[in-house]
């Protein structure tokens, strides 16, 4: 049933920070996460601006601003596109169809209940016909939230476990993780696009007429080397940062989900069932793997720089300790 205020110690409103190992309140952690998000977004913009500037130095110092503006426009354009269309795209790619009240009464009831508990508007609910248990959320803010779950998930979880998963997904929407992740992914995409354009330009155009004729050769050569190094490193660095954010936010969503349901054990046992699933895995394209409840590719739930999600066992033990 519900917990009366007398039972409050059970509520996981403080969690252990994975970085410092200290106990901090959920709200503080949410705020810190939001600050880190904006810092990161600023860093990405600077990185793009820097690339634009180096391009200008290497090719045509007179037009520095043109290049910086082009880089910024690309990044902003990609981010805006992600802001408006990422949810529709994600749902279309996953083959999700809208749930209907008669066929999926159970799921609809569970989601409505969790939404009431979380104090957010009822999200749209989608079903993916797939035997592998998984779920994801999308939507740029709680008013545009959507949650998709696979038929496999509904068939192996009991009510409390399903509530846990739905609450975890709702937490992503409530914490604005989706918006941030999709905009970050778009910026990384812009960097990669920029790299490809410039590298192609280098290969075909060779050194520009100006650089071979004019005297500023040395400065331009340094800029060129820096540019190439940055162009090779930037996408890698940006991707690593994006993955680090993704892993951190899974912990936060678990904690928020446990807080919403007041039941960390439901979520923990759902995670255990997904870990032990041995059927056909879900085929999910790389671009959307990070959105799922656990990464459909089992080895990408790991303590690794390349993983999108933390190890499932670690998530379970954190929940059990709440």
């Amino acid at each position: 049933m519900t917990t009366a205020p007398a039972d409050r110690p059970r509520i996981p409103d403080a969690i252990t920070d994975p970085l410092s190992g200290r106990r901090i309140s959920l709200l503080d952690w949410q705020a810190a996460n939001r600050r880190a998000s904006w810092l990161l977004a600023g860093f990405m913009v600077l990185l793009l601006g820097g690339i634009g500037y180096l391009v200008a130095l290497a090719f045509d110092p007179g037009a520095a601003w043109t290049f910086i503006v082009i880089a910024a426009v690309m990044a902003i354009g990609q981010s805006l596109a992600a802001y408006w269309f990422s949810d529709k795209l994600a749902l279309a790619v996953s083959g999700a169809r809208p749930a209907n009240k008669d066929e999926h009464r159970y799921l609809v009831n569970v989601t409505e209940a969790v939404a009431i508990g979380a104090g957010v508007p009822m999200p749209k609910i989608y079903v993916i016909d797939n035997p592998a248990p998984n779920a994801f959320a999308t939507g740029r803010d709680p008013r545009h939230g959507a949650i998709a779950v696979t038929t496999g998930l509904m068939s192996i979880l009991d009510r409390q476990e399903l509530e846990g998963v739905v609450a975890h997904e709702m937490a992503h929407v409530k914490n604005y993780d989706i918006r941030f992740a999709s905009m970050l992914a778009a910026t990384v995409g812009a960097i990669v696009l920029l790299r490809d354009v410039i590298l192609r330009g280098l290969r075909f155009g060779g050194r520009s007429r100006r650089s071979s004729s004019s005297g500023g050769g040395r400065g331009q050569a340094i800029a060129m080397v820096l540019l190439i190094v940055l162009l090779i490193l930037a996408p890698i660095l940006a991707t690593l940062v994006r993955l680090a954010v993704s892993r951190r936010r899974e912990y936060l969503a678990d904690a928020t989900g446990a807080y919403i349901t007041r039941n960390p054990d439901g979520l923990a046992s759902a995670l255990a069932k997904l870990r032990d699933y041995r059927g056909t895995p879900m085929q999910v394209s790389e671009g959307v793997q990070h959105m799922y409840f656990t990464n459909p590719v089992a080895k990408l739930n790991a303590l690794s720089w390349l993983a999108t999600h933390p190890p499932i066992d670690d998530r379970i033990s954190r929940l059990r300790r709440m």
Partner: protein
Amino acid sequence: MTTIVVLVILAALVLWGINVYNRIITLENRYQNAWSQIDVQLKRRTDLVPNLVETVKGYAAHEKEVFDNVGKARAAMTAAKSVDESAEAANMMTAALGRLFAISEAYPDLKANQNFMMLQEELAGIENKIAYARQFYNDAVLQFNTVITTIPGNFFAGPMGKTKHVYLEVPEADKELPQVSFGATPA
């Protein structure tokens, strides 16, 4: 010069006061709104009850006491005026429905009835939503109570006529009977 300083301080004080006042009103609205969430679910449950009783009667007509209890709870529910009365009637209803679903375990034909299964899931869902709505309500009340009993809210609460609000408690018997009788069969 001094007049300007005094005016600035006064303006800041007024703005601060407005801020605290608004915070108290916002939190009060939040818990009142949270109550209406519960109320919606209670009404939906009350509406489903006659249908459920009819269905069960078709298989277990002799379990008169159980039907009587459900009927009484429903009457109390419809008659309830205040939050307290509603809460009490709602607890009665939860207990009565719990009994009804418990006896239905003994009737395999009833349990296989499509309509009954649908109603059972629907009522389990509502029961769950009530639990969540109650949790949200208690959270909202806790926030309200905290603000009006701590500085600076406590200076305002008296003149505004705001006092600590009570939590919705769950009856002890209710806690011991977590949704066991409400089968969690996926639709």
